[in-house]
């Protein structure tokens, strides 16, 4: 299975939301990284068919998705960013509603709901009103609705935003479980969310795809350019102004700054093992 995006352009007036975006996705998890306003949600809306691109096409297994019409939608599962859903619905009611709009036959609804609730560990809360669910539970309900139609393409927009660490880990595990035989596109601006589970990372900046590759390959790009520098509190501002600083950590003899730089900052830096966050930082600071 291959989802191919060819030269996608989307603009609002003279402002480009997406500029010539091309990528080919196969089974596995893809992390779509980018700061707020980079065009992630626009790209997602185009992939899920909720928005039309001004230029470019989306192909699934070589067929233009516009020609596939609603059969393409049957193969999509989507979790929007920060959904509140319908607060006056119970969880099971909401899933029944989603079954109805996804055109899942009435005879399959019960079994399908039980199946997804179990997968996201919400079996005990299915009678609760959505308004009474915690943020994490609501996100899991979001995943549950996204997989109701057993989609081939699962698109998740900022799924971990606002979740506590335990929920975030639980969420990542669910996504990993689901990624078999599926294309999972996970859009986020939180790098650790995709660092360990993504097959490939796509980094968007101002509507353009600026980097694409496996986490390891991307980390190689900044190899030898990541430094830990221990400075006094008074020097922090100077370094922050001069270099892209990723992390600030309090250590015994001052503050340790994680800096991405071509050369050793002030000659006092200690080389560090690069991470995906460093890659992200180096791209965003350009």
């Amino acid at each position, binding site marked *: 299975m291959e989802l191919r995006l060819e030269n996608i352009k989307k603009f609002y007036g003279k402002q480009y939301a997406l500029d010539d975006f091309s990528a080919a996705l196969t089974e596995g998890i893809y992390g779509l990284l980018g700061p707020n306003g980079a065009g992630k949600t626009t790209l997602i809306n185009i992939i899920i068919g909720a*928005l039309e691109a001004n230029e470019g096409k989306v192909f699934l297994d070589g067929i233009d998705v516009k020609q596939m019409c609603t059969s393409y939608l049957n193969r999509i599962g989507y979790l929007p960013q920060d959904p509140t859903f319908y607060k006056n619905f119970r969880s099971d009611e909401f899933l029944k509603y989603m079954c*109805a*709009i996804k055109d899942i036959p009435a005879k399959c609804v019960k079994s399908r709901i039980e199946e997804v609730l179990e997968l996201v560990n919400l079996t005990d809360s299915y009678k609760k009103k959505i308004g009474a669910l915690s943020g994490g539970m609501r996100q899991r309900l979001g995943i549950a*609705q996204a997989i109701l139609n057993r989609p081939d393409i699962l698109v998740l927009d900022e799924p971990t935003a606002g979740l506590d660490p335990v929920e975030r880990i639980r969420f990542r595990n669910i996504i990993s479980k689901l990624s078999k035989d599926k294309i999972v596109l996970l859009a986020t601006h939180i790098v650790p969310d995709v660092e360990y589970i993504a097959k490939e990372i796509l980094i968007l900046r101002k509507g353009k795809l600026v980097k694409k590759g496996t986490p390891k390959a991307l980390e190689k790009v900044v190899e030898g350019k990541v430094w830990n520098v221990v400075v006094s509190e008074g020097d922090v501002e100077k370094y922050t102004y001069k270099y892209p600083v990723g992390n600030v950590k309090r250590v015994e003899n001052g503050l340790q700054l994680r800096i991405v730089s071509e050369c050793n900052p002030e000659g006092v830096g200690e080389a560090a093992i690069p991470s995906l966050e460093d890659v992200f930082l180096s791209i965003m600071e350009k």
Partner: protein
Amino acid sequence: MIRLTYFEIRKNYLRGYVVIALLVFLLLNIFIIYKNYVSGDSNTLGYNLPHSAKYEKWWNSYDDMHDKLSGKLTMDKVRFVVDEYNRLIAMVSDRSYSTEEQEDTYTGYIWGDYVFITKYFYRPMKYISTYESAIKQVIKNAEDNIEFYSQSGNNFDKTKNQFIKEHYSERKVSVFYNSKVWDILFKYSFSDLLIILLMFLGIVPIFVNEKVSKMEPLILSSRKGRINMSFVKVFSVLLYIVFLVSFFSSINFLVFKLLYGLSGIEMPIYAIEAFQYTPLNCSVGMFYVLQILLKALGFFVFGMWICIISALFQRVIYPYLISALSMVVGIYASGYVASIETIKTILALISPFTLLSSNRLFNELLAVNIRDIFYLRAHVAIIIQVCIMVFLYFLIYTLISTKSLGIKKKLFMKVGV
């Protein structure tokens, strides 16, 4: 489709605040009808007696008289009323009658009896018994007019008089009932305001809530959601409005029946004096049904307009404000329903609220001159509202299935929104 419609109803209308508002409005509506019943309806000519202890004797006599006179109009009944009228007018004309309270009277006083018989029985019965001859004169005039306008080449007035000749002939009222209460029922419009408020509560969030809850892209990326959502939403609006209109119309009818004792449901609509020149030949019962249907159509068109406003905004406050403003403008424009000025007539015909005042649309012969041909204003209003309804549905469908801002902008430029 049924599943989706159910969920749409559950989502938008089966909400706590809507149900509570419905119950509160139901009680308020009953209270207002009762209040009008007790205080008397001063808007209805000749029917403004309050139902208070002071007028208890009046009402007892009134009910007794109606028990005696209601039903088929006979010579005996007419003679009785005329005799009573003559007896009382003879007593009051020379001003020699007693002003003291008297036992053997309808109201307790001679003058009261004179007013009572004249206002509530003599004049209504005179109207009914002379209706046939009066309408015959109207038809004769129409025939003369047809000839005159044919010669002068005035096609509009010719066709108008032809309509009168065709629709007003053979009219006769052979029954006598308390027709004024039907008139009060037809004119009662407080429940319409309550329906509009309930429409605001139920329909304004219909599309905007999908955006607030981030459900819009989910719906658009789902098979049925993408194809059927706009239809299902509009259909749910129709069901909601049909429910509200039938519910309040039934309640109004029942409460009126209980308080005023509506009788003569099969008497012709022109038996009500206010409707003497109506173009309709149906019964009062049928007119009430027609009124309900027209209200449903008018409310539905307004409901679709609210849907469009709801689809255009991200926050619910703006659709509420614009819907309320639209309501004010619409009601104002509908006030021109009987206007003779072209622009004002067009405004009234465009306003869906015109269909809410069907008593005004039908109580006289209101015409529209289109290319020198006579058309009934009510027919034109209905056709225009149906066209607006189709256009609004197309607009909703386009807005929902096309989320491209560019296309939206083009569309607005086209329709001049």
